[in-house]
């Protein structure tokens, strides 16, 4: 987005996402149950079961990016879901009560499937929606991995994946097709591989692609993961980036610094931040957020592999692991500083950042900043305060 020339694949992305939303609306008519799913959950099972996965988080992000999240949230807030709750959840729940639907109507679920590795908010949001829509709900429960994963946790996840398969079989009245799962996993592997190769291009100096671009192009890896569409899209994007490299088109034209960003973007301020960094010749090169979709599944042991991939990601890790993961990214991308986003909507990623900022600076010698805000709700964002915080940060980047 920061690049002076728009991406050619942007048009393809638009078509792909339009197709996704259209399918969401058509699925039920075509006899395909709609399953609400969470971003970090084994959607591969849903695709393999022949169900349509719908991402309410994506709905929240879309509303946020179009700067209408607070408006839709208000419909939830008047019902008693207070503004302290996750902004995505307030949008997702609020739209069901709202009279106006500025980003289209949220698609009603026939089933709900959430995983709490990201947060307990998703667990509660989906449970609440299951009550509202009176639809069956399955929680894939992931106990926190504080150090190394244990057999206990892995077995718990595997047992639950078997229960999930049964949950889908009941809904589809069809035995689960493991051959189909293997195909889906294979496609997910390919899309994840391509996506991570693309993300890695941000380590080049200067780079053709950065975090804000990744935020723009990430929708298919979330929603279409496990399909041919995602693979096709990232092949095209990668080709375009290689072409841009040969033409010396870079994300930040006079890139002088690279910065690590933690975690999610401030969606309604994507352009604002992108410009702020570009003004200082800084490229936000990496974030653990966009790297969440870096799965590699072993087709010979599908359930074990799904259990490992989905429970061992950063969002299910303890304090020290999260620090180490951030530092690893900082080293790999050779950043000059880091920005930590204390996101009111996201306690799991925000809590602990005050200490982590000091610890990371001590261990790496890099300057860092923690700023307050909300990923979707501008009522919790002060342009001036954030700009002042970053002013000091940019002065430290030398």
């Amino acid at each position, binding site marked *: 987005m920061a690049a002076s020339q728009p991406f050619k694949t942007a048009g393809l992305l638009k078509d792909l996402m339009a197709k996704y939303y259209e399918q969401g609306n058509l699925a039920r008519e075509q006899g395909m149950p709609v399953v609400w799913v969470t971003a970090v959950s084994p959607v591969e099972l849903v695709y393999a079961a022949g169900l349509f996965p719908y991402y309410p988080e994506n709905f929240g992000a879309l509303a946020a990016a179009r700067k209408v999240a607070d408006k839709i949230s208000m419909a939830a807030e008047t019902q*008693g879901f*207070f503004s302290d709750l996750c902004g995505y959840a307030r949008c997702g729940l609020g739209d069901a009560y709202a009279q106006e639907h500025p980003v289209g109507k949220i698609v009603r679920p026939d089933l709900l499937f959430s995983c709490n590795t990201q947060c*307990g*908010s998703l667990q509660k949001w989906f449970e609440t929606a299951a009550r509202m829509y009176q639809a069956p709900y399955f*929680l894939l429960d992931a106990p*926190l991995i*504080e150090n190394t994963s244990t057999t206990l946790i892995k077995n718990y996840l595997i047992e639950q994946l078997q229960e999930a398969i049964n949950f889908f079989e009941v809904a589809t009245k069809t035995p689960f097709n493991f051959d189909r799962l293997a195909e889906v996993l294979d496609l997910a592997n390919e899309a994840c591989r391509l996506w991570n190769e693309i993300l890695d291009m941000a380590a080049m100096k200067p780079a053709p692609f950065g975090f804000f671009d990744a935020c723009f192009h990430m929708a298919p890896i979330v929603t279409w993961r496990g399909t041919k569409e995602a693979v096709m899209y990232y092949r095209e994007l990668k080709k375009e980036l290689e072409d841009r490299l040969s033409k010396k088109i870079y994300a930040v034209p006079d890139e002088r610094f690279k910065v690590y960003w933690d975690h999610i973007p401030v969606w309604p301020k994507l352009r604002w931040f992108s410009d702020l960094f570009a003004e200082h010749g800084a490229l936000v090169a990496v974030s653990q957020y966009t790297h969440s979709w870096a799965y590699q599944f072993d087709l010979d042991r599908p359930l074990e592999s799904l259990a490992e991939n989905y429970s061992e990601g950063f969002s299910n890790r303890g304090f020290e692991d999260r620090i180490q993961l951030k530092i690893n990214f900082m080293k790999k991308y050779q950043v000059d500083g880091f920005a930590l986003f204390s996101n009111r909507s996201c306690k799991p990623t925000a*809590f*602990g950042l*005050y200490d982590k900022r000091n610890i990371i600076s001590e261990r790496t010698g890099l300057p860092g900043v923690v700023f307050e805000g909300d990923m979707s709700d501008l009522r919790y964002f002060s342009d001036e305060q954030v700009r002042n915080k970053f002013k000091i940060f940019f002065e430290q980047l030398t």
Partner: protein
Amino acid sequence: MTEHRIIKEDLCTRFKRIIAEPDLEIKRVQAENPAPVIGHLPTDVPEELIHASGAYPYGLVAYEGVWANRADAHLQTWACSLARCSFGMSLAGKLDYLSGLIIPHICDTTRMISGIWKQNRPYGFMENYELPRQVDRPSARSYLIGELERLKSSLELFMGRSIADEELNRSISLYNQSRSLLRKLYRLHEHRPDLITNLDVFNAIKSSMLIPKELHNLMVSDLIRAVEQEARENNSDDAACRVRVVLTGKVWEPPAVIEILDKSGVVCVADDLCTGYRYIANDVAESGDPLEALADRQLKRPPSPCFVNRKQDRLEYLVQKVKESNAAGVIFLHLKFCETENYDYPLLRDALFAANIPNIRIETEIGNVSQGQISTRIEAFVEMLGGEETYGS
């Protein structure tokens, strides 16, 4: 004043003092019989395991609100005051008599605070209790038994001794006795709120988390005896005049809220609070494998917003509870920033209204509460339920 009444008032005062100065009693006990004190955050930590290991279990449930701000350098102010205050007290050195701390993972805040706590004020023994967050599928049980085994081994390592099944069974029996006594006290309170107030019964439950159960059980037994005697000697229709209310939420904080209920002519006849009836609602089977029995108790506890249970949904449970207990209304006692309660609230409220059950939501924060406003709202609610005509005149 009769002898029974003196005994009763003395015991109720002692419970109150244990909560007001929670370190005094545990330090005294520890001086007599030295053993490590292992703290636990609410809720649902299997204290029986701590007890069987030879340590003193100690619930972090007695709050001094002034210390909440101590946490601000490490934890955002939009974390709930329960977490901020407990952690703040620890940072301020108010819990230095602890040798260990077990944090149950029941929400995002508890999941995240364990690492922050360990970083800034570690005790010799720091453990998480990673409860299954779904409780209605078979996988929850097999996992929970494994988690209890893990916690047991970790305690054994810290205490330098193994826990035999017989020892754990003895602890289970002691804790069952405590729960059974407290349930009896709760029912006595329901019938004779003039003799044992809302605050008395909640103080009795909370103080049981702060001192050894052996000692507490004796006190509760004496209290029950004294109240029963007093009840025999002195008839009263006070209970009939009071408005019967169900409390729902996490904790009854700050305690002033319960004092307001006492003054407003309310008798709390049921609740699902972690420092209330949820703590004593069900027992652990005393036969069979003790860890399996502990797991089964956990999975059968009354519904909580922290655990998904589609087979026994909290909505139906709460409506049913109100009907069973013949209550006139429900008071939601919510801590600001408690997400799990807030997600449940609108639909719970609507389900109650749909069943013609009046209800009110009171939001509180530990260390920061306008008692006047809460008092006015509760009085108005009680008045609406018809309480003022019959009570308090």
